[in-house]
């Protein structure tokens, strides 16, 4: 009897997952707990283990397909049972498990199931009619509620949305296919306020068109949503990290030998951010429409570049760790992020984000907030610059810290205070600062 593998729930409030990559094909044998496939839900490909050992007999969801949690995605025939399944049914299944009386749908040749009969989630899949009408009426189908099967946006949904749109230059759309002459508006053609459609790419003959990876799609969607829905404001402050640089230089050899990980600037920054979040709790919060949610845990996400794209693993309860703990936790996460070994737990629950953009040499960036968080800070490249101290010019190691914040939740005063705490914390580090 084949075991049906369902799309797992890879994190609370996760309702669907996208099949990233099948690691096993039909006919492959698989050990119990061996990875079957990768599923993309957040910004990662999480691997789904096989619930039983056996042979993959059916794959029910294709790569790139997004299915609801609980949807069957493949079937595994338990080891040693495959022959029993195909054997003549003369001997009634006296020996086998009594738990599954219903015969498994066998591998009989069948007509392909028409697309209309599928049980997969159809949100985000648009018919040619929907695409055409959406384009003609400047409607983003993503923003339309689908009333069709499995949440599909139907042609009528688009026509309704078009009809509901005020001040539309397009003539009222009927169910009749409209062949319209150029509209002849009385008076100057006024540009209506409407959701701007994305500018289409111009593809020349020798251009290469690369389909989006699932991670790329998630990133694109997140960034779009954050930029379109969160009013970003931005501040920058210069931090004199000369003493921090000196401290690190003096300790790094010994630290590496003793702790087994490198001593970078990241844990110092993380600790400074933790203290700033304690000082300005409104920054450790989330916008909730008609309220603000102040988060009790301090979980700091670290924006991390990987060859699959940007992901943000989270250091849980960062306020309960010292420099050594933060160094180990951050390096562990980065290492696992780059090898694709993060768990869903590593990727969820963040309350604030730190981005070490300086690693690529920038001195000023304008990061996009990881909504629904309220802010994101960057640590920029440390550069030696002449600065004036007590009316004298000195060569100091300087680092810029930038913050993007949700101006609905906090104003410049709070954001400024927040970044000021970071600055004071980093500048107060001296030769005697403890790492523990």
């Amino acid at each position, binding site marked *: 009897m084949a075991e049906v593998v369902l799309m797992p729930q890879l994190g609370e409030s996760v309702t669907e997952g996208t099949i990233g990559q099948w690691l096993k094909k039909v006919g492959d044998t698989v050990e119990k707990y061996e990875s079957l496939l990768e599923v993309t839900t957040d910004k990662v490909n999480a691997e789904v283990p096989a619930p039983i050992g056996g042979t993959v007999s059916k794959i029910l969801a294709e790569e790139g397909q997004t299915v609801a949690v609980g949807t069957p995605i493949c079937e595994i025939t338990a080891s040693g049972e495959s022959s029993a399944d195909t054997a003549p049914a003369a001997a009634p299944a006296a020996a086998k498990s009594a738990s599954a009386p219903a015969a498994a749908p066998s591998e009989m040749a069948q*007509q392909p199931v*028409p*697309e*209309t*009969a599928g049980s997969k989630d159809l949100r985000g899949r648009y*018919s*040619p*009619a*929907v*695409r*055409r009408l959406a384009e003609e009426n400047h409607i983003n189908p993503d923003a339309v509620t689908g009333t*069709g*099967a499995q949440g*599909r946006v*139907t*042609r*009528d949904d688009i026509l309704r949305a078009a009809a509901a749109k005020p001040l539309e230059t397009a003539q009222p759309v009927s*169910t*009749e*296919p409209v062949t319209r002459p150029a509209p002849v508006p009385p008076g100057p053609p006024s540009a209506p306020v409407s959701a701007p459609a994305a500018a289409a790419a111009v593809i020349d003959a020798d251009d290469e068109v690369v389909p989006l990876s699932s991670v790329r799609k998630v990133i694109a969607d997140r960034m779009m949503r954050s930029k379109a829905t969160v009013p970003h404001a931005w501040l920058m402050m210069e931090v004199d990290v000369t003493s921090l640089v000196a401290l690190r230089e003096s300790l790094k050899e010994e630290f590496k030998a003793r702790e087994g990980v490198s001593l970078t600037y990241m844990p110092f920054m993380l600790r400074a951010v933790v203290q700033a979040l304690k000082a300005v709790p409104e920054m450790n919060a989330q916008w909730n429409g008609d309220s603000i949610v102040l988060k009790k845990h301090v979980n700091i996400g670290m924006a991390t570049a990987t060859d699959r794209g940007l992901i943000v693993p989270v250091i849980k309860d960062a306020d309960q760790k010292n420099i050594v703990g933060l160094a180990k936790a951050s390096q562990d996460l980065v290492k696992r992020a780059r090898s694709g070994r993060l768990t869903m737990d590593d990727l969820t629950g963040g309350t604030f984000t730190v981005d070490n953009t300086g690693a690529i040499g920038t001195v000023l960036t304008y990061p996009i907030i990881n909504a629904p968080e309220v802010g994101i800070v960057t640590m920029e490249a440390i550069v030696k610059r002449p600065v004036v101290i007590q009316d004298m010019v000195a060569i100091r190691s300087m680092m810029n810290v930038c913050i993007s914040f949700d101006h609905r939740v906090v104003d410049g005063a709070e954001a400024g205070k927040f970044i000021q705490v970071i600055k004071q914390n980093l500048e107060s580090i001296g030769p005697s600062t403890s790492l523990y």
Partner: protein
Amino acid sequence: MAVMSYLEAIRETLRQEMRHDERIIIYGEDVGVRGGVFRVTEGLQKEFGEDRVIDSPLAEAAIVGTAIGAAVNGLRPVPEIQFADFIFPAINQIVQEAARIRYRSNGAFGVPLVIRAPFGGGVHGALYHSQSVEAFFAHVPGLKVVIPSTPYDAKGLLAAAIQDEDPVLYFEHKAAYRSIKGEVPDERYLIPIGKADLKRTGKDVSIITYGLMVNYALKAAETLEKEGISVEILDLRSIRPLDVEMILETAKRTGKVLIVHEDNLTGGIGGEVSALIAEHALFHLDAPIMRLAGPDVPAMPYSPPLEHAFMVTSDKITEAARKLAKF
């Protein structure tokens, strides 16, 4: 205007046209003395004599072959093949000769021939008395294939077929003969071959079909209307030539198309209709084109439950159209 059955409409049209045109002859197995196994030609031999209503030998190739010769030489033969299932011995005459003579003779000769044949299942006819054969002939350039769905259309299309200068296959569904009734005008009229008929307008789903299935689809549409699903029905009336314009119009109007025929799915006319829509109306489609057809099994079974399972019914059409509407 009289209410007639589908069968009576065919008989009266034959009678009316024969009175009008002496060149028309009827030719086939048992069509004379017996009046045909379904009684379509009953009384015609009495009225028009043995020279015009001729009992033929049991030889379909000869029936069609001699009819082709008669047609080329100036008569208007309307031979009957007793069951469409028996048309295959004549297929060489129909496809190789009748369909091609105009082309082969560079237009010098035509074959004004109408081959009538009862077809279709659901009448406990089993393997050799239930087949749908229209797709074989719809494939052939030079032939016209007509399948009326109502007594009114049966008359207008048969008259048009008889007056056509080229060969026409005229298929009559056996289950329609006595079950389908309707008003038929007394006077002569023609329905042009190649013009579909919009039986019903709707906005959610288009059902494209022909023959007996039109009646089943209309019943399904009534059921669905009560559920708030608005169904449009296009009766093709002829499957070669197809009324491409009306097919595309209805497909564009609703964006959802269900094609229905009793003939089995693979290679059936539904595939051709579907291809036309996909080629010319893609950007109006809101759902995959759907086909409901007889299953791809060798023949109609005799066992009543199996025969019922084979047949496309009103319930099956209702279910398919509902699914498509909800997509």
